[in-house]
């Protein structure tokens, strides 16, 4: 008996040594632009994956294809073999294998003996991040498409249906679609999606729909978003996307849009983060119609709003172009033209944007641009 007890004791001590090693992951994960994936893929399908893969070794999984968006129509209704190559270095995965399962929209490349696939995300990706999750069902009537429709419209329809079916749980792939990536497909279906979402009974979907419409420059969507902002607070992530769309992508010079931005930036009842993104959009646009609003911001108690006022008026006076994503990358929005109606050595010397430059010597900039506005407002019609 004593011997048996002893053995039990030994077993208890050694059990922890048999503990299985978990998986740890770090690092960036970046979505591939949908337009890039569309152009690069030899086939795009709605399908359901099955199989088991080894992380650090090439393998293959089967994909049951329901619909073909791009590529040979003959693979619809069949099961194809898709080759898998071990991805990024960010994952440490000592385990033997992992399940390759999931239903959604897959991007495929032709490969010797079958297909390989283009993951929709790169970096430290796991298998579930490599496709757009979508239900294996027929499309809603609003998104039905013909076999001869352009690939962009077909894909937009599949993505739109998937987004409408999304329950809002964390999906990396969808999170990143609402920063202008969907619009880059240049499909009218995306506008349909945005309008349907904006009219949804779900507040979360409303925010996403308005986000898309605002990226498209829709002034009435901007007005609705501003008016409804207090009701969006429960959906912080989606509201954050919407604010970012206003700040970085909304560049409409429509008078109604300018008025909404200007009134929002000035409003003491609006949320401060909303006021700041409206002010930033105004400063980026900096047409003459924005100037009265930007000038008012020079007296704001909020330092960031004053910074936007200084930057926007300075950009106008120096004849700088409207800042957009395209000329931000090229720095074109910061290149002084040779001549400008209001551009002088003084306006160039007092030009600054952003808090880093302006807050280091705010009075220098603030006093100049206040005086400049008083000297020039009449000639500008204000």
């Amino acid at each position, binding site marked *: 008996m004593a011997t048996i007890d002893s053995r039990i004791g030994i077993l208890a001590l050694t059990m922890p040594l048999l503990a299985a090693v978990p998986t740890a992951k*770090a690092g960036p994960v970046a979505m591939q632009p949908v337009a890039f994936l569309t152009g690069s893929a030899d086939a795009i399908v709605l399908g359901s994956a099955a199989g088991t893969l080894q992380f650090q070794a090439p393998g293959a999984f089967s994909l049951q294809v329901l619909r073909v968006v791009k590529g040979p129509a003959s693979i619809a209704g069949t099961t194809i073999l898709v080759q898998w190559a071990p991805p*990024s270095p960010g994952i440490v995965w000592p385990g033997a*294998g992992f399940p390759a399962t999931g239903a959604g929209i897959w991007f495929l490349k032709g490969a010797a003996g079958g297909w390989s696939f283009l993951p929709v995300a790169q*970096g430290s990706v796991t298998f579930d991040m490599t496709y757009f999750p979508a239900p294996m069902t027929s499309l809603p009537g609003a998104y039905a498409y013909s076999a001869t429709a352009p690939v962009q419209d077909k894909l937009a329809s599949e993505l739109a249906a998937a987004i409408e079916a999304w329950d809002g749980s964390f999906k990396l792939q969808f999170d990143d679609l609402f920063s202008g990536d969907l619009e880059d497909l240049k499909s009218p279906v995306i506008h349909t999606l945005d309008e349907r979402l904006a009219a949804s009974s779900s507040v979360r979907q409303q925010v996403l729909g308005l986000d898309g419409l605002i990226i498209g420059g829709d002034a009435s969507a901007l007005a609705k978003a501003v008016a409804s902002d207090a009701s969006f607070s429960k959906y912080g*992530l989606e509201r954050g996307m919407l604010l970012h769309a206003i700040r970085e992508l909304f560049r409409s010079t429509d008078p109604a849009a300018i008025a909404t931005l200007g009134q929002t930036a000035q409003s003491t009842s609006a949320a401060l983060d909303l006021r700041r993104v409206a002010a930033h959009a105004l400063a980026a646009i900096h047409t003459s119609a924005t100037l009265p609003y930007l000038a008012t911001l020079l007296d704001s108690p909020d330092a960031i709003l004053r910074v936007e006022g200084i930057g926007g008026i300075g950009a106008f006076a120096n004849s700088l172009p409207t800042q957009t994503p395209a000329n931000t990358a090229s720095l074109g929005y910061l290149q*002084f033209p040779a001549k400008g109606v209001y551009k002088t050595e003084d306006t*160039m010397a007092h030009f600054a944007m*952003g808090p880093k*430059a302006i807050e280091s010597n705010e009075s220098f900039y603030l006093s100049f641009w206040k005086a400049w506005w008083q000297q020039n407002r009449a000639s500008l019609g204000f």
Partner: protein
Amino acid sequence: MLLYYAQASWTANANGHSGTPTWTVENNPVGGSVTLSCYTCSTTEATSTTASAGCNHDVAVYVTYPDGAQSAPLYVLINTPASTTLQANYPQNSTWISQPGWNGYQSKYQWYLFDLCGNGLEGLDINETFGNWTIDYTYPQQTNWPFPKAGSAYFAGYDFDDFLAASGPSNAVPPPQNPPQPPQPLGDTTVYHDTPWYYFAGSQSFGSGVPIRVDTQQYYQDHGTHSLANW
């Protein structure tokens, strides 16, 4: 793929003057600065050596011709990735089950990256480097979680993500847990941490590029964190 060019070619316009011009550069002692490939020549290659102090044109360049004629200044701003802001409602903690029967989490951080002028930057390579790992979980026995490896990626959009994740079986030490559902609070059992953790923009080569974040990354049993929201 977008690169931040640190060089530019400048050509003097003689505008009726003759001879070879001389270039004069007024750098900002605490801000932007450039060096030129030649200083008495018609065309020169400018290489930025430091970024501007802020979003203003703090480098002035002139050319002077042998007859004494001097050009109007060319004002130069040297822009750079400058700050990151954590997007609203991040980090997002979600369940990550890498194998059937396991539990685990993935904590996603998403930042916006801004240039000196406060505008969002898109289309940049990103890489991370790790510092020193310290094991926090040592009792009743030391953790058997492997250290993760550093990653890199090209980001086409404005948002720059980082994941901290772990998944494992119930007999791992300690067993990774799914993030609790709010309003249940996140756990406080630490496993290991790494400092300094760096995030660089402009390259996928580890340690190359402009540092845009540095902090401590902490792995807990049911979530992961970065110590600083903004930088």
